């Protein structure tokens, strides 16, 4: 069933989730509902070993995410420095509220190449409603601080029903702040976002109108700003080529050191994911049963197995298949050919139902 070791390509990118802690409480967060304990977070020494092993495996793209990665500023700087020394490109994925001058200076001196800052909405009040705290003005300051420095900057805004109608204002905000790269990604339903799906699901009108608005903006801003618009899976007829295949290009290390093919995979039960406390990244990538489980196409069910797109979209997202059907080996229900496609159709058609959401926050400790 498993791909042979010889056929497994070397990984190219690594996402380090430094912590699941965050000062914001966005309901669309993809982090797991169980945010774990900060005392279980990897030490600086363990993280630096992860970086060294990644470089040794041939990884050239390293992302720092979370939670909010700047909550571990010392480790973040040390890891950026180590990754850069190894020739890797470094990306900081942050909501920005702690990116002060001192930290930015340290990160740039360490070689940081790219900062992605997310906003919740272009309007202060709506942003505060979504984030559960009023930090919009601080973020605006941080965006201004970063854009003047020698580092690539991407502005990101996750779109969902609560902020989708602000799309024109997001574009105006990006223009006003001289943004060169703007990422408008519709919410995908993992972790907290899945928990809050019925409150966050955009309406079909929002999604379709958004595509038209963005296409016009892309034309108008060509050469000035690169605007990407990611449709929500639930509104697509074909699944996304998730992670370009399971264990094919990328891996993620979670705050507590679990090695997964992508950050959503922690939700899949029944796969025994390796941990950097007891294994190397090399063993995890090439030899672990969890990484080999969905490599190649021998694991695929019908209709994937005989589908002529199987080498293009790899059966879609394993995490979404698991979350929606209970079987990680099922065809991604986002695909119109999936026998379970009715599940996503039912959810997207119910998207006009008003509903409160649960703000992301640590669960009460179990006794």
């Amino acid at each position, binding site marked *: 069933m498993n791909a042979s070791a010889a056929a497994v390509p070397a990984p*190219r*990118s690594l996402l380090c989730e430094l912590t699941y802690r965050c000062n914001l409480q966005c309901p669309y967060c993809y982090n797991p509902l169980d945010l774990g304990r900060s005392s279980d977070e990897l030490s600086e020494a363990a993280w630096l070993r992860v970086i060294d092993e990644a470089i040794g495996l041939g990884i*050239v*793209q390293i*992302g720092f995410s979370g939670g909010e990665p700047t909550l571990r500023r010392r480790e973040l700087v040390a890891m950026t420095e180590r990754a850069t020394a190894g*020739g890797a*490109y470094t*990306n900081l994925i942050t909501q920005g509220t702690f990116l002060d001058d001192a930290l930015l200076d340290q990160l740039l001196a360490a070689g940081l*190449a*790219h900062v*992605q800052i997310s906003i919740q909405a272009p309007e202060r009040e709506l942003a505060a409603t979504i984030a559960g705290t009023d930090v919009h003005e601080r973020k605006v300051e941080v965006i201004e601080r970063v854009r003047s420095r*020698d*580092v*690539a*900057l*991407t502005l990101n805004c996750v779109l969902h029903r609560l902020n989708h109608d602000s799309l024109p204002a997001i574009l105006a905000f990006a223009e006003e702040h001289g943004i*060169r*790269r703007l990422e408008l990604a519709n919410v995908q339903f993992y972790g907290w976002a899945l928990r809050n799906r019925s409150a966050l699901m955009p309406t079909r009108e929002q999604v379709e109108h958004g595509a038209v608005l963005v296409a016009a903006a892309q034309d108008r801003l060509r*050469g000035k700003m*690169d605007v990407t618009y990611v449709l929500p899976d639930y509104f697509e007829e074909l699944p996304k080529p998730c992670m370009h295949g399971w264990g094919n290009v990328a891996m993620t290390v979670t705050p507590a050191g679990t090695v997964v093919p992508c950050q959503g995979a922690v939700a899949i039960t029944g796969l025994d994911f390796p941990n950097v406390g007891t294994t190397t990244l090399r063993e995890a990538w090439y030899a672990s049963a969890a990484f080999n489980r969905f490599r190649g196409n021998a694991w695929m069910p019908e209709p994937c197995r005989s589908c002529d797109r199987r080498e293009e979209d790899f059966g879609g997202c394993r995490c979404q298949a698991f979350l929606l059907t209970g079987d990680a080996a099922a065809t991604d229900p986002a695909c119109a050919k999936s026998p379970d496609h009715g599940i996503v159709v039912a959810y997207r058609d119910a998207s006009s139902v008003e509903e409160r959401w649960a703000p992301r926050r640590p669960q009460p400790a179990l006794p």
Partner: protein
Amino acid sequence: MNPRYRLARGIRLRCEAGAEPLLLVPEGIVTLNVSAAAILETLGEGKSVDEVVAALHERFDDSEASLAGDVRETLEDFAAAGFVER
């Protein structure tokens, strides 16, 4: 008129012996052919097409006329992608 090109902020060229040359960009990897890598390698703090052509002519001994078209096209393609700025 005669714009000078350089790598855009946060765009990194990675040329290592024994490995294919790469352009590392925000959350992405672009595999370069040898001539594109050579062009980008010469840019430094900023070079015009003519300056790039002169540098490559010295290095590869191709005719300047045949180089100029390639260089301009390559730099404009990378500029359109946002990886090179004028």
